[in-house]
């Protein structure tokens, strides 16, 4: 009887330890993985959305924050991408992560981002993606599977060489 209590106590302690380690950091999603379905607030206008709401379109999820210096230049590149390719088949989806909403709204206004924006203030969605920081971008196909992750800022060359071949043109069927 006494030995079984000790065994149960040891198993419980080890289980708690494993759970703690496993829940400490999210594992990074890989190519082919489904998009995390975490609901997050919209940055403006109220309401919530998840990536499931974008099923049927190519989506480039871009994690950013107003305090992130490389995100400023990247916002211009992504804005241009949205202008060229954005539509019913593709959209950039900004995710403001670990940030203050007034700062984030000021950032969007300042850099004139025209694509939809979500707010991941507590970093839950970033955790589900397993991000390592900002900026990071993830291109999902219309079935919601990850096609291309990119950790770090996207400039025009990276966009042209890595992403544009995958993203449909506005007029393509």
């Amino acid at each position, binding site marked *: 009887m006494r030995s079984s209590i000790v065994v149960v106590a040891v198993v419980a302690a080890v289980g708690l330890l494993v759970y703690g380690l496993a829940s400490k950091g999210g594992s990074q999603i890989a190519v082919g993985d489904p998009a995390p379905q975490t609901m997050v607030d919209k940055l403006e206008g109220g309401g919530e959305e998840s990536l499931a709401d974008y099923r049927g379109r190519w989506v480039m999820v871009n994690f950013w924050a107003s305090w992130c210096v490389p995100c400023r230049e990247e916002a211009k590149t992504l804005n241009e991408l949205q202008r060229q390719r954005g539509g019913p088949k593709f959209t950039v989806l900004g995710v403001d992560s670990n940030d203050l*909403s007034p700062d984030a709204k000021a950032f969007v206004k300042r850099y004139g981002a025209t694509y939809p924006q979500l707010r991941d*203030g507590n*970093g839950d969605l970033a955790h589900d993606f397993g991000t390592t920081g900002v900026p990071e971008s993830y291109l999902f196909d219309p079935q919601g599977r990850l096609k291309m992750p990119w950790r770090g800022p996207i400039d025009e060359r990276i966009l042209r060489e890595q992403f544009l071949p995958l993203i449909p043109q506005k007029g393509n069927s």
Partner: protein
Amino acid sequence: MRRPGLLLVLVALCGATAAPAAAAQPEVNINEIESEVMCPVCGTLLELAESPQAQREKAFIARLIGEGKTKAEIKDALVAQYGNSVLALPQSSGFDLSAYVVPIIGFVVAALALGFGVYRWRRSSGPPDDRPPAARGPTESEQERLDADLGRYDL
């Protein structure tokens, strides 16, 4: 000429009544708040963080202090922005309460277990009993056998 004097008296009276009310408001200390909240990106206390995100958070707190918010209101605003993980100390309600209760329960259980262990140890290793073991009388069958045996001898 009397009116300005009356006005001065009224102003002085208002000041005298407002002063205790102002004194009742606890002064919010930015250093104290920074030692009780986290920089979510850095994973450290805000007072130890110097990252760009931490600077924004500190500026946010300073702005709220400037607006006259209380410490509790500032913490609520931070939770609204960053979630509960921004608090360095667990909340005293909901699931977070377990952070305070479980250690107390653990301490009580450990103390009880220790006390029980000491009690059993003292009982098992106490001084030897000098008294002779209590005499046990014969059972009924033994008594019958004894009587039968004694009956065979002419004593």
